[in-house]
C-alpha cells in the first residue's frame, strides 16, 4: 500500500486505569487514517470519537515539550511528530499504542515519570556557579565551547531514551541515558563549576555510566537525534582525562584492552577477565572457565592460556607505536 493513501485500519490501544483496573487490557478502534495524520491525531480521534475516557499527555504539538512520548509496537515516538502512515507501513497495518513504560502506567498512555525526574535532578541539571548579583558583562562562550555540548542542550526530557533503556529495566538504580546526557551537557559547560562532582557521581558502579550496556536503543529512540550514548562515551573519557576514574572492574576492563593489544594486537580474552577482576575476583568465573576449557573455547592447542595462547598480528610494531604516540588517557 502506498504512503499517500487514506486507509481504513484498526488501531489497538493499551488501556489501564490504576484506580479501577486489576490488569491492563487492549481495545481496538476502527478509523480512517490519512497521509498527514500523526499518531497524536489518532489518539485525539480515539478520545473524541470513540471513548472520552482514553487518557494521554499532550501539550505543544510541535515536538518541543516532550509530553506526548509513547511507544508504538515498542518503538518510542513523540506522538505529535510521528506520521501514522509511516508506522502503519512499517508494522504491516497492525499497531498498538502503548505507554512508554507499562509497569509505570497510571492511566492508559499516562505514566508516573517520577523516576525519570528524580534521576534528572540527581545530576544537578543546571549551571552551578557563583554569579555576581550585579554583573558588569556577560559570561561569553566561544562557538567551539558551545559546540562541545554536541546538541545535548536540545534534550526535551520526553523520556523516550530513558524508557527504551534495557539496562534501566534490569537495574532501576541506573541513571539512564537522559540523566547522563544532562550530566554531560552541564559538565562540558565552561560556565559550570560542578563538573568534578557530576563526574564522580556518574562514575559510581551500579548507578553511573559503567552500567550502560551499549545497545544503542537510546540513540535509536531519541526524537531530537541527540544520540545519548555518544555523551555517555564522552563522560567515560572525561573520567579518565580528569583523573576521576577509580581502579575498579569496569575501568580496568576498559583500560585493560591495551594490555593484549600491545602484546599481540588482539584483546587477550582470558587476561582481560583476570586483570579486571583481580585474582580474588576470579572465583566467580571458575565454573564458566572450566566449561569453556572442556568445550575448547579456552584452548591449549596454540599455547598456554594467560601466557602464550594468542596469535600475533602482522606488523604488530605499528600498533605498539600508534598506542605510544596516540594514547591520551591513563588510569
Amino acid at each position, binding site marked *: 500500500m502506498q504512503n499517500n493513501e487514506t486507509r481504513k485500519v484498526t488501531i489497538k490501544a493499551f488501556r489501564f486505569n490504576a484506580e479501577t483496573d486489576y490488569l491492563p487490557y487492549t481495545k481496538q478502534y476502527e478509523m480512517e487514517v490519512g497521509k498527514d495524520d500523526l499518531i497524536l491525531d489518532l489518539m485525539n480521534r480515539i478520545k473524541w470519537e470513540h471513548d472520552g475516557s482514553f487518557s494521554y499527555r499532550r501539550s505543544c504539538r510541535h515536538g518541543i515539550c516532550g509530553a506526548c512520548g509513547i511507544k508504538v509496537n515498542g518503538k518510542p515516538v513523540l506522538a505529535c511528530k510521528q506520521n501514522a502512515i509511516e508506522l502503519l507501513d512499517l508494522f504491516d497495518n497492525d499497531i498498538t499504542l502503548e505507554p512508554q513504560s507499562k509497569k509505570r502506567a497510571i492511566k492508559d498512555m499516562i505514566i508516573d515519570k517520577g523516576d525519570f525526574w528524580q534521576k534528572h535532578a540527581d545530576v544537578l541539571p543546571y549551571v552551578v556557579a557563583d554569579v555576581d548579583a550585579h554583573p558588569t558583562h556577560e559570561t561569553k562562550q566561544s562557538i567551539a565551547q558551545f559546540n562541545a555540548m554536541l546538541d545535548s542542550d536540545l534534550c526535551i526530557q520526553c523520556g523516550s531514551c530513558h524508557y527504551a533503556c534495557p539496562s534501566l529495566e*534490569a537495574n532501576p538504580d541506573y541513571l539512564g541515558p537522559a540523566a547522563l546526557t544532562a550530566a554531560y551537557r552541564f559538565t562540558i559547560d565552561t560556565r559550570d563549576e560542578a563538573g568534578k562532582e557530576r563526574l564522580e557521581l556518574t562514575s559510581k558502579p551500579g548507578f553511573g555510566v559503567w*552500567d550502560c550496556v551499549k545497545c544503542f*536503543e537510546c540513540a535509536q529512540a531519541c526524537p531530537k537525534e541527540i544520540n545519548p550514548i555518544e555523551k555517555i562515551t564522552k563522560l567515560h573519557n572525561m573520567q579518565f582525562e580528569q583523573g576521576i576514574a577509580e581502579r575498579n572492574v569496569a575501568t580496568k576492563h576498559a583500560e585493560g*584492552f591495551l594490555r593484549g593489544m600491545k602484546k599481540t594486537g588482539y584483546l587477550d*580474552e582470558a587476561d582481560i577477565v583476570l586483570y579486571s577482576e583481580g585474582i580474588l575476583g576470579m572465583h566467580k568465573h571458575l565454573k564458566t572457565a572450566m*566449561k569453556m576449557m572442556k568445550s575448547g573455547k579456552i584452548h591449549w592447542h596454540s599455547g598456554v592460556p594467560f601466557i602464550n595462547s594468542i596469535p600475533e598480528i602482522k606488523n604488530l610494531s605499528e600498533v605498539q607505536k*600508534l598506542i605510544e604516540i*596516540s594514547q591520551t588517557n591513563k588510569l
Partner: protein
Amino acid sequence: MSKLKYALFTGCTAKQSTPELLSSTLAVAEKLGIEITILEEASCCGASHLQDFDEFLAHVLNARNICYAEKHGLTMITICNTCQLNSQMTKHALDTNPDLKARVNEKLAEVGLEYKGTSEIKHFLYALIDDYGLDAIKDKVVTPLSQFNIAPFYGCHNIRPSELHEHSNGGENPYVPTSLDRLIDALEGHPVDYESKNKCCGFHVELQANHTSEILAGNALVDAIDNNADMVVTPCPLCHLKMDTYQDSVGKVMGRDIEIPVLHMPQMVALALGATEAEIGLKFHVSKAKHLYTA
C-alpha cells in the same frame, strides 16, 4: 555473477574463544565461491570499551585496520557486530570530520599509512544477502534446515544506530529487522517470530553489571525457548558467547532451566550448504549443539 572478493577482518573472538566462527565463515565462502583475503595485520577494534577509555586512540587503531582493506582495494567484511559497529563508527567519524581525519592521519603517517576512506565496511550477513543474494544461496542448499525452528537474534550493533548502518545493512529497520529471518527462509528453516529478536544480550556489562547482563540474556533465551525454537542463531560472536556459555548462571537468575543451542550465523549457513563437522565446529559450544549436525 562476478566473483565476490572481500578483505576479512576477523576480530579477536574468532581467533580465540570462537574458532568455529572463523572455520564456518571460511567454509561458507568456499562453498559459495567467495574470495576472502584475511587481514592478518588487523588489530582489535576496541569493542566499545577501549573507546570508553580513549576514544581518539580507538579511532587511530580502527583507521589503521581500514587502511589495510584499502590497500587491497576491497570492501572490509566483519564477522562480529561489535567489530562492525566500531569500524563503521571510525569510518563515519573520519569521513565526516576533516579535522579528526587529519589528526588521525598525522599519527598513521608515523607508521607509513594513510586513511583515505575508499573501502566500505560490511558485516558478512549483509554481504551474503545483499551482494551474493538469497536466491543464489537457496540454489546451493544441500541440507535444508526444514526440521528446525530457528530463532534469529540480531544483536544490537548491526542494526543500531540505523543511520550509521543504513548503507551497509541494506536499510535494515531496527524495530522490524528481517535479514536473518529471510536467510533462515532461504535455507528452508522456520524462522521463529519472538519479541526479543532485536534486543540486547547484555554481553558488554558481563563483568561490571553482571545481574543486568544475566537478565537481558535470560529474557532473550527464555523468549526463544517459549516460542518453540530449536536453536538461536546470531551474527554476533559476543551474543553467542553470552547466550551459549552462561546458560547455567542465566537460568539461576531466571529461576528455570535453560538449554538451547546458540549458533553463529555462518554455522547455520554452513550446515545447510553441507560443510564438514570440523568446519562447522559445533563441538566448541558450551551448550549442547552437536546433535544439530546430520551428515
